[in-house]
């Protein structure tokens, strides 16, 4: 049996049928019973059922009429009809109008009912899984579409810039300006390389199997700091950290590294050079159940209208050569894969604060 109990709604005007059904199956299933079709409709509105069983012969309306009525509004539950005597007309209606999955003869047999429910649930589950897969596939396709579209820009643009510079350099005799052009080529190539590394990170993150280990935030931050502090764009930025880790925190170190790397790199990239003391301050507070990470800077800040869009794929808030618009998308994906959340508060000219909460993954 699956972790979640199978929810069943049973409608029958004979109370003792309801109670004997509930007594027989209540240990296996999550059962709701009612003798009124009106009440049954209300219950459908309030709760999700996997399976509905209905007696055929009831006052007000028959089981088939009930199924026919609710079928459009509640298509998900699998319908089973319980009938006392086999009437061919009712059977035809049940199939054509009520689209029932099974008939159960009265008096019902425990094994037979259990079998019908189990088969019905299989269908329910398969349909739900299929729906879920479809949603995931749709998302994957949309991402692929966006990827192909942006690839023409983000992969080709730096290359075409290099070609443009080469064309220009060929017109030049002066060695000094040749060197200037080489420097531009170098920058362009580096930009392309960063984009490719980001794409690889993203796919590792999206498709890779997570490896959960005991995390030392101190070590992780030191490691990330070591890789970035010699970057030429690091400038005068002052990075300070405040790490408090109490007890063991389990998570995927690869994803955490992606998160720290991107957020700190952004703080470097978008530092406000006009300020005397550009800084980024990293705070980590971790307990055995969760970690709170705050990255605060006094950089250029993010426009309010851009704040809800920055986590979208290929959305670039700034002009100039700021980036490809994939960094924060990767951060967002990594955090949601870890079951966490990220939020941002920012003001133009003042700085940005990214706040992240991630639960510890219990092995």
């Amino acid at each position, binding site marked *: 049996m699956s972790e979640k109990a199978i929810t069943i709604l049973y409608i029958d005007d004979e109370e003792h049928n309801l109670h004997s059904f509930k007594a027989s199956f209540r240990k296996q299933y999550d059962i709701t019973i009612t003798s009124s079709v009106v009440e049954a409709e209300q219950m459908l509105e309030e709760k999700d059922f996997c399976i509905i069983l209905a007696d055929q012969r009831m006052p007000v309306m028959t089981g088939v009429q009930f199924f026919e009525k609710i079928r459009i509004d509640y298509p998900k539950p699998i319908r089973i009809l319980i009938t006392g005597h086999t009437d061919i007309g009712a059977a035809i209606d049940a199939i054509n109008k009520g689209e029932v999955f099974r008939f159960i003869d009265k008096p019902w047999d425990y094994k037979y009912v259990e079998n019908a429910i189990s088969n019905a649930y299989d269908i329910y589950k398969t349909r739900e899984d299929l729906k879920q897969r479809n949603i995931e596939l749709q998302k994957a396709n949309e991402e692929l579409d966006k990827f192909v579209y942006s690839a023409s820009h983000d992969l*080709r643009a730096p290359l075409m*810039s290099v070609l443009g510079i080469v064309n220009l350099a060929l017109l030049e005799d002066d060695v000094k300006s040749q060197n200037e052009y080489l420097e531009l080529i170098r920058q362009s190539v580096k930009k392309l390389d960063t984009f490719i590394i980001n794409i690889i990170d993203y796919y590792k993150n999206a498709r890779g199997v997570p490896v959960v280990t005991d995390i030392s935030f101190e070590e992780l931050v030191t490691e990330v700091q070591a890789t970035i502090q010699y970057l030429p764009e690091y400038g005068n930025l002052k990075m300070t950290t405040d790490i408090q880790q109490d007890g063991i925190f389990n998570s995927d170190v690869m994803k955490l590294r992606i998160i720290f790397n991107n957020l700190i790199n952004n703080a470097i990239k978008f530092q406000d050079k006009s300020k005397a003391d550009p800084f980024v301050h990293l705070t980590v507070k971790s307990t055995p159940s969760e970690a709170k990470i705050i990255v605060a800077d006094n950089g250029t800040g993010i426009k309010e209208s851009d704040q809800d869009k920055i986590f979208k794929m290929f959305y670039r808030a700034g*002009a100039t050569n700021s980036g490809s618009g994939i960094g924060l998308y990767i951060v967002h994906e990594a955090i949601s894969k870890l079951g966490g959340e990220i939020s941002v508060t920012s003001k133009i000219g003042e700085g940005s604060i990214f706040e992240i909460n991630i639960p510890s993954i219990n092995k």
Partner: protein
Amino acid sequence: MEPLLNFFLIDDSSFDLFIYEKLLIKSGITHSVKTFNSARDALKHLTTQGDGLPETIILLDLQMPDMNGFEFIDEFDHLPEPLRQKVRIFMLSSTIDTRDIEKAKASPHIIDLLPKPLEIPFLKKKLGL
């Protein structure tokens, strides 16, 4: 004597602005290149210039944050007719997406889509020089 052409470059990449400004001037096709790293700024400049705007050729990038090339064209469409008459627009992009190419071709305001990197002989041919 050949009249000197007046150019606007609109591109979010400061790289490309630098390259193409130099290239245009070196080619001798123009002495006057104005660069904009945002389409919105370029639009503002066009409207404030009004009647004082000389005959201008715009090389317009496609993918830009905030306002992209096509959004610029949508806004350009609302400018007064006499102003629009003075402007010839070429899209300059590294795109290989057929949807973009079709869209650029279909636009009445875009003369042609020039692939990056810009080739001066190709541009001259398009300008009938």
